[in-house]
């Protein structure tokens, strides 16, 4: 059973389509990784799923069609999106950012236990809970963005280039935490990345996008097996 | 083609062009010439005011329609022009034709100076600053320190200019001629301005300010100049208004006038030269009609007109008129054209991205 099923999705920004009828799937509890160069349409894919741009095609989450819904409705259904650039509420504190992530939760206890879980994954955020979010480092803001996405107890998380602009050690730490989250929270993940090598270790399914079309779809071994793609995305 | 055939074709084309647009011009001139003769003196007075309002509205349209900057204080510049004329005539007996360039210079300078700090910033700053100017202007006129110059609350009364050289024209008829002349000059000048490189720069600044700046256009200077020229236009209208009404007083130039000018450009058509005329007709006749219904009605009409125009007629009356004209022309073309092979039909060009 797939958690997310995208079929024949086309989307663009008004000047012509950027995505051309792509098909993507995320299995229940699985991790799908989408690779591609700049402009390949990876971010557009996530924005289309989240309802942030005009799109055509079918998008289903747990057998519910979301392709006609507004962004906030999709978020309330349990699909959270960590956007390109992190989308931090820079003027608010770390704790307030996280609290906003839990906006759709009813009940103070639920929110409290959500905080506990997020702080356990990201102890650094607990230390900086009263600090203004705009003053956090790049890595901490990325943690905050992911933490915020987890606060609502989502069933599917969309992650847009979490490694962007981070130092290698920070990226390793972040992916360790992502693996931990995936194992413990039973959440499905659709991950978009340029840094292929480290993302592949997490993935059970890989897609390669080129100019808005899918050129590879399969398990990670497929990518490792294709010499030209391996050279392009894994550098070896 | 032989020379004879070419000459015949050319004559055909020229004659064709003569019949349509030249006929329109002749008809308009005939109408304009007939108006002062057939109208009663009160109607002529109103027509004169329409011409004056049209000039004032054109001034504001230059700033707001073409320049994209909103001014809620142009009534102050209208009043400034009016008072300049009135004071020059009343205190120093300056002949009225000379007061017009004086009013123009005063309003150009003060408009430029006022616009200079505000246009460096967001549109809302200019809107607030001009709103403040529009509200405060009557107060400045009433203050005691300037009473010697402005006549304070009483205002200043002046005489209407009479026809020169003993021409057999009434004062209103002579004023009508003067107004048409000035209006022709102003409308032509503005038309040349907006159709030329300056106009393109101004509209580039309106639509894509960052891009315009990045290609080297000094946006702040252009915006300030636009403000100055726009204030000058409206100021000249004010000067003419003083001559027509023969009186200037502080309460004639309140924020209601500024809002009226805004209604004029919105109802007439933003970024449209002919729109100034439609707008002037609207603000000259509709509020006074409404006033007979109730005291609140003129203000209500202004408010509703502003909101409704944005939703229903975003291009104003000028847009409606040109839309109708386009549809009529298309229908006429379809009727007069013989059936042509489909290959010759050129589809209408699609809107670019």
């Amino acid at each position: 059973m797939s958690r997310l099923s995208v079929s024949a999705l086309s989307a663009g920004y008004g000047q012509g389509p950027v995505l051309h009828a792509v098909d993507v799937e995320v299995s229940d509890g699985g991790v799908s990784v989408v690779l591609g160069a700049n402009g390949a349409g990876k971010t557009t894919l996530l924005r289309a799923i989240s309802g942030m741009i005009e799109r055509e095609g079918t998008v289903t989450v747990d057998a519910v069609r979301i392709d006609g819904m507004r962004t906030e409705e999709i978020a309330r259904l349990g699909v959270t999106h960590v956007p390109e650039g992190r989308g931090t509420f820079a003027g608010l504190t770390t704790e307030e950012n996280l609290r906003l992530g839990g906006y759709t939760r009813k009940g103070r206890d639920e929110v409290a236990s959500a905080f506990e879980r997020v702080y356990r994954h990201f102890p650094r955020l607990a230390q900086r809970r009263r600090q203004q979010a705009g003053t956090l480092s790049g890595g901490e803001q990325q943690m905050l963005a992911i933490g915020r996405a987890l606060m609502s107890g989502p069933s599917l998380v969309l992650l847009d280039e979490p490694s962007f602009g981070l130092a290698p050690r920070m990226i390793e730490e972040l992916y360790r935490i992502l693996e931990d989250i995936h194992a413990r929270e039973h959440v499905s993940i659709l991950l978009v990345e340029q840094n292929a090598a480290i993302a592949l270790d997490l993935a059970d399914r890989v897609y390669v996008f080129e100019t808005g079309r899918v050129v590879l779809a399969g398990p990670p071994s497929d990518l490792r097996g294709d010499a030209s793609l391996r050279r392009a995305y894994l550098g070896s | 083609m032989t020379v004879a055939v070419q000459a015949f074709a050319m004559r055909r084309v020229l004659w064709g062009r003569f019949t349509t647009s030249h006929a329109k011009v002749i008809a308009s001139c005939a109408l304009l010439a007939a108006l002062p003769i057939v109208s009663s003196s009160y109607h002529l007075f109103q027509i004169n005011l329409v011409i004056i309002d049209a000039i004032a509205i054109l001034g504001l349209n230059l700033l707001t329609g073409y320049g994209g900057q909103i001014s809620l204080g142009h009534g102050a510049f209208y009043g400034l022009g009016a008072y300049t004329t009135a004071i020059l005539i009343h205190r120093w007996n300056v002949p009225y034709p000379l007061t017009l360039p004086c009013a123009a210079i005063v309003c150009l300078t003060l408009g430029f100076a006022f616009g200079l700090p505000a246009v460096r910033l967001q549109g809302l700053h200019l809107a607030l600053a001009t709103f403040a100017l529009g509200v405060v202007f009557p107060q400045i006129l009433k203050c005691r320190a300037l009473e010697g110059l402005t006549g304070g609350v009483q205002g200043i009364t002046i005489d209407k200019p009479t026809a020169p050289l003993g021409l057999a024209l009434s004062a209103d008829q002579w004023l009508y001629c003067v107004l048409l002349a000035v209006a022709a000059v102003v409308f032509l000048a503005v038309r040349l301005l907006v159709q030329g490189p300056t106009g393109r720069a101004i509209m580039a600044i309106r639509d894509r300010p960052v891009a315009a700046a990045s290609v080297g256009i000094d946006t702040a200077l252009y915006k300030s100049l636009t403000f100055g020229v726009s204030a000058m236009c409206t100021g000249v209208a004010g000067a003419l208004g003083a001559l027509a009404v023969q009186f200037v007083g502080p309460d004639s130039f309140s924020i209601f006038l500024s809002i009226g000018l805004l209604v004029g450009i919105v109802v007439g058509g933003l970024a449209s030269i002919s729109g100034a005329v439609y707008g002037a007709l609207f603000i000259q006749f509709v509020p006074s009609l409404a006033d007979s219904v109730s005291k609140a009605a003129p203000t209500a009409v202004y408010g509703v007109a502003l909101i409704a125009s944005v939703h229903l007629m975003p291009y104003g009356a000028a847009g409606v008129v040109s839309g109708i004209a386009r549809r009529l022309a298309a229908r006429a073309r379809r009727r007069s054209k013989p059936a042509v092979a489909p290959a010759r039909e050129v589809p209408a060009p699609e809107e670019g991205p």
Partner: protein
Amino acid sequence: MEAFLHQVCSGLANGAVYASLALALVMIYRVTHFVNFAQGELALVSTYCAFTLLNAGVSYWVAFAATVAASFVFGVVVERVVIRPAARGNALSVVIVYIGLMVALNSLAGWVFGYTTHAFPSPFPAEPPFGNHYVGSHELGVVAVTLGMLALLYAFFRFTSLGLALRAVAENPESSRLVGIPVERMLALGWGLAASVGAVAGMMIAPILFLDPSMMSGVMLYAFAAALLGGIDSPGGAVVGGFAVGVLENLAGAYVVGTELKLGTALALIVGVLVFRPTGLFGQPSAERV
């Protein structure tokens, strides 16, 4: 000295009203990025409603509460019916709609309630407290009511989840949608709050200025000046700016330009802020999206 203190005290009272209106302006600006030109006239309509209730014999604080509640609803309705459809257009059209709204509301007030000037009752006693010569009871009351309202607003924004959601929308509307906040509903809420704040301001200033359709135009000018002075996106700045403008207005009127040109100080302030410090005392310079 006594006259000076008196000017300062009444300046603070007026300033409290300007602070409230400036805060309402900042609230709407932060969420919509537009200045609500119709803020004053909204307050005017609210004040007239209160006047009608009071004339019908309703006791003051009941009428006060009812007006605040009704104004909230009216603000939400105006946002939905007039502002939201226009928000899809370009910036110029939106400003034109705001101005049209200002003018239409003003004419509504004149049409329904007439153009005669009325006295508006104050809930505070007529005698100055403790027989002092500096501050009247109404002036003290205005400052107290305003400060109370500001405290309530602060608590709302700081400690409630709805307040947090509003701050989030002001900060980053796209991310707000991503966490499930219904942004359009928040805009309506913001308008409702601003209308309520305006209603309080109107009811506080009406006993001083007397109620007629032109009551709010001067007041709004000072409120605009206060909001610009404090920084159009800073709520704290709006409050500080409001009190400052109130005191400045009175001192300038008494000692510098005379009472006829008091309004000119608002103009001077606006132009001054634009020339010397466009972001205001506490505002943030905004980065423009290319």
